[in-house]
């Protein structure tokens, strides 16, 4: 295999991994903060994808504006749901949370099917993201390169936000020890609402950005549920950098395996996750007991 095809496969995998990262990072932080098993996270990504695609199609919004619209719309929906419904189940058992969020997925799937229809939506990319970009050693799809740039920028922004701001420090403290953080005067409930909105908004952006790669139809939340959960579980809950590396790992692996073993490639990912979680139940980057 020559260098350029290897680079091509890597770039494709990294681009897919970036989408996984943008969608899953919010899930990781909210799960780490409250221990809430939110299986409906992918449904927020789907809602965002629809908001972005439809606002471009019907209102003629440019791509970046549509992404912003998707972020704000889904973050707003998430805040309302968090205040009215999620908040009641923080102390509930895992089982109730699983049940509630599966129910929410069904409701959102039905809402989208009723409102838009069951068919697959296609994203029409703007002119400047189509075609190829010459990187010197390889010419690659501009859109994948843009995804990699966007994902890296987001990673840096989140890392700075977590490491360098007061709120970031509070979130880290609360993920490590919620009770202790609370007794030091951190308003964990407010933090959670904030991260939940931010995380859902990012999922929405990821849904829109990834629609090109993952597709977009009402079955989206169930189809990718396992992937998002695997990324969070492998990366460790509440660890932004962990999710980043896990998403890249899974993205590249999935991309390579789908090319070389089109039939049962995903099997390796499940097997790897299984072995990894048995050895380190807290994930690659998670802390024990956190």
């Amino acid at each position: 295999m020559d260098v350029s095809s290897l680079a091509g496969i890597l770039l494709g995998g990294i681009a897919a991994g970036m989408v996984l990262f943008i969608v899953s990072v919010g899930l990781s932080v909210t799960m780490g903060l409250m221990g809430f098993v939110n299986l409906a996270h992918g449904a927020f990504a789907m809602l965002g994808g629809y908001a972005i695609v439809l606002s471009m199609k019907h209102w003629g919004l440019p791509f970046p504006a549509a992404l912003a619209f998707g972020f704000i719309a889904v973050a707003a929906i998430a805040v309302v749901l968090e205040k009215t419904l999620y908040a009641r189940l923080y102390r509930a058992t895992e089982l109730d949370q699983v049940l509630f969020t599966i129910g929410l997925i069904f409701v959102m799937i039905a809402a989208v099917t009723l409102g838009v229809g069951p068919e697959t939506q296609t994203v029409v990319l703007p002119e400047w993201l189509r075609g190829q970009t010459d990187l010197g050693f390889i010419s690659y799809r501009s859109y994948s390169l843009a995804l990699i740039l966007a994902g890296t920028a987001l990673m840096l922004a989140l890392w700075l936000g977590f490491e360098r701001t007061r709120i970031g420090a509070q979130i880290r403290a609360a993920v490590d020890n919620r009770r202790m953080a609370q007794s030091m005067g951190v308003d964990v409930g407010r933090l959670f609402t904030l991260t939940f909105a931010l995380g859902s908004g990012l999922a929405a952006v990821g849904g829109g950005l990834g629609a090109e790669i993952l597709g977009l139809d009402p079955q989206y939340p169930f189809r990718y549920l396992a992937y998002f959960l695997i990324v969070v579980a492998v990366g460790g809950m509440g660890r932004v950098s962990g999710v980043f590396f896990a998403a890249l790992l899974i993205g590249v692996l999935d991309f390579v395996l789908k090319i070389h073993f089109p039939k049962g490639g995903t099997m390796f990912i499940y097997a790897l996750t299984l072995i990894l979680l048995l050895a380190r139940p807290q994930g690659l980057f998670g802390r024990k007991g956190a």
Partner: protein
Amino acid sequence: MNAAQELGRRHRLQWWEALPWIASIACFFLFPTYLAFGTQVLITILFALSLDLVLGYAGIVTLGHAAFFGAGAYTVGMLAMHWGWSEPLSGLVAAALVAGAIGLASGLVLLRTHGLALLMLTLCTMALLEQAANMGAAWTGGFDGMPGLSFTKILGLFSFDVLYFRSQYLYALAVLFLCFVMVRMLVYSSFGQSLTGIRENLLRMHAVGAPVRTRQVLAYTVSAALAGVAGALFTQANGYANLAVLGLERSAGVMIVLILGGYGRLYGAFVGAVAYMVLEHVLAKAYPTAWQLGLGLTLVLVALYARGGVLGIFVSLRRRLVGSAR
């Protein structure tokens, strides 16, 4: 009433426990054209009952219970297809053994974890089996599964009835009854009591010296074997097995059935399976979107307000009535 009397009262057979069985036999005579559907309901009840043992009694939340249903279904199917082993009763035993062995092996390693890791591990185990069934096409039929399987007469007397499912219905009912009697005895034994203890307070059970892990693994194994029997019944009654017997959809489906009915109550499986499947049968084909919306809203409401499911509502209503009479 002291604790011993209370326990004794709880374990005694109540008059209403005969109702589901009377109703199932009555259905055989009342709805002779719906027995194919009835057979599926009975199989789902058995599957949900097996889940109740781990979820409702041992408190293990799993997203991968379909792994065992699928293991049972494929065991019977592969035995019949490749080795001509199509005797149904021994097929059930083989399915129980295979599914139980998978349950034991996975339980031994998986049950050391909890929370998200356990959820993911059960999910991954099932996904692995699903992919294996998909890939090993020479053995499992791959994506198309194994259509057109036939089995010999049950006990050498009753042949499988492809058209009306009469013998399948009674066969499934008999197997369900036997399994139920076993589960009921198990749940009300001291073993079952210690499972409830583990569910309610893990630390305290460790503190009193109960062999927590061993009991959890044992419950997981028995439950897996029962799910395998349910899967085997599925293959035998329908004459086929395909990838749909494994997968997140079936796992989530049986969980929904059990929780709608009420978990940790034995009879929740019956109420949930009948309610869910009849509604699905009526609604899902005609109004699929409305069915999804209704199901989703119901799940949300159950999680928020009615954690005991249908039976839980019934019990608390009864308590309120009896309480006010006193």
